């Protein structure tokens, strides 16, 4: 492979990732608005988060649980707010499993 092709690949692949990841980061719903619309909210205690960079990986996995609309983590308070559709039963164990797959440990459910 010519050096120019290698250089192009080195620049292009990261650029595509950069755009993809920035787009993922930019599309976060307003969680307070979702709560005010009558959806169910649950609050979980989470251990293992140590910086704001931990939020995304956890929220991504919890948001994939069927019935979850959105979630919001707070590393300083060690809390995760989860908004769920009001008329859908969601087993807590599915959310605990998602928390563990993010490398964190669930504590108490406060609400």
């Amino acid at each position, binding site marked *: 492979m010519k050096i120019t092709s290698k250089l192009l690949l080195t620049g292009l692949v990261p650029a595509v990732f*950069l755009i993809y990841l920035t787009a993922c980061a930019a599309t976060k719903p307003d969680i307070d608005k979702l709560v005010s619309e009558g959806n169910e909210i649950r609050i979980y205690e989470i251990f293992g988060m140590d910086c704001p960079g931990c939020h995304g*990986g956890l929220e991504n*996995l919890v948001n994939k649980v069927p019935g979850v609309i959105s979630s919001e983590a707070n590393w300083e308070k060690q809390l995760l707010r989860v908004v769920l559709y009001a008329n859908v039963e969601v087993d807590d164990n599915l959310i605990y499993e998602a928390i563990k797959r993010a490398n964190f440990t669930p504590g108490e459910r406060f609400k």
Partner: protein
Amino acid sequence: MLVFITLFVASTIMAGFVSAAGISIDAGLTPAENRWIFRSQMRFMQRNNDPTPALREMKSYMLPVVVAYGIRSDLAIMIRQALRRNEIKMQGQSSSSTGLIDILVLAKYRLVRLNTPGYTLGISPTLGLEIPSGADNFSSNSWDLHLGTFVSGRSRSWGIDLNVTYVWNGMAKTSSADGDAGDEFSIESALAYQFGLGQNANFALAPVIEFSYLSISSDSKDGITITNTGESVLLLSPGIKVTLSSIILESLLQFPLWQNQLGQQTERAPSFLIGIRIMN
């Protein structure tokens, strides 16, 4: 004479190839499952104080790009590629070269992850393979094995890290004409204090101080040690890390506190890096 000059120049270039990675915070913690992390840095390194009459000086710029992915919660894979530019001065003559270095594929396994209300502890061994894919003069021309163990401890504000790595250069050579680059051993420790800022704690600022010890064995050819290769360095690196929910910005200055080059080699001068990490 030609062989001597070739080895002389090669030792100058290869000595600049190896540097402490810098910003080792959180290395012991594996990312969440299905998480993508894109990391890039701009590094500037230089060597000078040549003890020989050649008065060699080297400036080196490196742009490494790392893409990491959490395959499972306990296993992450990373691929690193880097573009490098070397500018060399010798006896008043200048030359420069630019090229890609060897690709590194690395797996990190979560051996221990302890999450408690007061602290977090992570221990992750790594296994990596450096593939001889780089450009001429920028490739080791050998498959090199990277072994490491990363330990990270966190309280809410304090962070402490200890990373130990060993690089077995020349595990399998692609050409018998090449010599064996010396193996590399490094210990990196880091201490950080994090201030949480912003609404919903979505912004954090952390001053970081790192101590790195790096030891590179002499190169050899056909079992005979090549003179003027191999060194040991102790680096002190103050830095800063800014963390947002999806982006981490980092910057580090590296000062050699102590260094011992074998034979007649240039010395390391202070270096600098600035980096970005973007996560989904």
